[in-house]
């Protein structure tokens, strides 16, 4: 076994996808940049009025919808909207609710009444349920949930009222930026390579082995502790490294891009994917294939 050592080199700047060359170049602004001096526009998120001039308050791209101008930041905490799928970690167990960390400004809230009881029963939550909350979800557990609503202060209210949400069992969590996850119809994918993926809108991506059969009665709290086979683990490790490679080159993440990246990474060993030159090669091939698909 040989250790690979190398001298440091200047990091190459990551170029945004060349897809931008075909459409109009998006306007990138930094905080303090004047967007427009025209007073006819309404100001949206990420902007403020500075002496009659509309100025950006975050670093990102300018979005204009008719008369509304807002700046969408490139790197930000997760700003949840109703219907987003998130992967979060339980930080606190409180009376009748759990606090979940979802990479947003405030911890999200998961009420006891918003979870499915094991057995799929529909009944009023009693005091006993409150006392045995910790048996369902403890501090440190990972869950997948959906955003039910947003509080006035920006905190998210989550719910797991469907069989596809609930406590997550064995798998790998990859923490990325929320702006890299593309909004799609569904965020749960069973990839043909043999693993499943949950692309949380908050940037947390969960990779897990495809479950053999669905446990319908469990209601989302059954976690299989059977040992995962080596082949599954290799697939998941390769996927994780592919995700990191895509994130390093700021490629939008969705099931197709992850799948293409996985295919192009096959000739390399799993551990080699993290090397800068291999990463660049794989991501370039992925971007090319994605562009061919679009065009």
């Amino acid at each position, binding site marked *: *076994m*040989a*250790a*690979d*050592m*190398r*001298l*440091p*080199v*200047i990091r190459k700047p990551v170029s945004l996808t060349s897809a931008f060359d075909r459409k109009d170049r998006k306007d990138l602004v930094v905080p303090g940049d004047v967007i427009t001096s025209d007073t006819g526009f309404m100001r949206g998120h990420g902007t403020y009025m500075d002496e009659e001039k509309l100025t950006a308050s975050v670093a990102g791209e300018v979005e204009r919808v008719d008369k509304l101008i807002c700046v969408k930041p490139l790197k930000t905490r997760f700003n949840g909207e109703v219907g987003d799928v998130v992967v979060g970690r339980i930080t606190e167990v409180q009376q009748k609710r759990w606090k979940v960390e979802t990479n947003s400004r405030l911890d999200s809230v998961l009420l006891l009444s918003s979870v499915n009881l094991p057995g799929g029963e529909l009944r009023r939550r009693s005091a006993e349920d409150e006392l045995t909350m910790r048996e369902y979800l403890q501090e440190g557990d990972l869950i997948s949930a959906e955003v039910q609503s947003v509080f006035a202060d920006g905190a998210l209210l989550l719910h797991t009222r469907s069989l596809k949400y609930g406590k997550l069992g064995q798998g790998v969590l990859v923490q990325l930026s929320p702006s890299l996850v593309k909004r799609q119809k569904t965020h749960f994918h069973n990839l043909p390579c043999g693993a499943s993926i949950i692309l949380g809108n908050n940037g947390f991506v969960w990779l897990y082995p495809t479950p053999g059969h669905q446990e319908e009665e469990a209601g989302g709290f059954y976690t299989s502790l059977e040992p995962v086979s080596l082949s599954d683990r290799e697939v998941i490790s390769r996927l994780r490294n592919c995700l990191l490679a895509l994130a390093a080159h700021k490629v939008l993440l969705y099931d197709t891009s992850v799948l293409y990246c996985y295919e192009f990474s096959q000739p390399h060993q799993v551990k080699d994917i*993290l*090397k800068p030159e291999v990463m660049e090669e794989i991501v370039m091939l992925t971007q090319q294939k994605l562009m061919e698909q679009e065009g």
Partner: protein
Amino acid sequence: MRDTHATTTSVFTLWQRYKLARLKKCTSYTVYGMTCGWMEEAVRTTDTWRSRLTWFPTQTAQPKSHCSANATPEFEGRGGEELGTELSNTLYKVFNNKRSVDLKSLCISAGEHCWALYVDVLLLQCDGNLYDAISIAIKAALFNTKIPKVFISADDEGGKEIELSDDPYDCMRLDVENVPCIVTLCKVGHRHVVDATLQEKACSVASLIISVTHKGTVTCVRKVGGGSLDPESIFEMTEAGKRVGKALHAPLMKLLHQEESLGKKREKVGFLG
């Protein structure tokens, strides 16, 4: 994946040369500085005095003991002091033998004057596996250290006068063949992991720190962490650590020689370049 980088800064005083080494593992950076000064005052006592290696986890400007707050906000103020003292204690233990660094070569005149090597380690970023990164940086810095040659002449009053040669490139190098490299093995479940990231470290309860020379000799074994280690697993981990440690030295020396041969053409990277 590791990057090693050693750079020399220009001589700012005749008797002080300052070398920096930087090592990256995953995203851990340690900056390693070494100063050589001769110990005149301390030596003019009647006790016989040997040259020594002193360890300071410091910031390069002030000799205070704390890790840089760049690594994590916990290191602000005196937060990193505990980690800093632990680091210097372990390093002291690792190098506390006759063979790691040839101390006799640091002698100027027997029983009177010798070189004292001060080794400063500055942590810029912490992403697990600190000891490994630091030991590789130390080896690189020691390789790069140039100690000026001194001439001893008798002055008028009968005492000895020390003169440095005028040529700034007239210096001697240290032999770093026997400098050990540290390998950290973290126990996760029933197996052990080498070169663990911060997340992998969070899953392990105990780790074993082994320092190994290029021949496979172990100079120091230390256990850290609150968990327990089975005696059989300790043996397995030591064997694995010896294998890994032995394999680290050859590529490192090759890389250091390669960088040395680049000379002026070496690419200067980062603010320390």
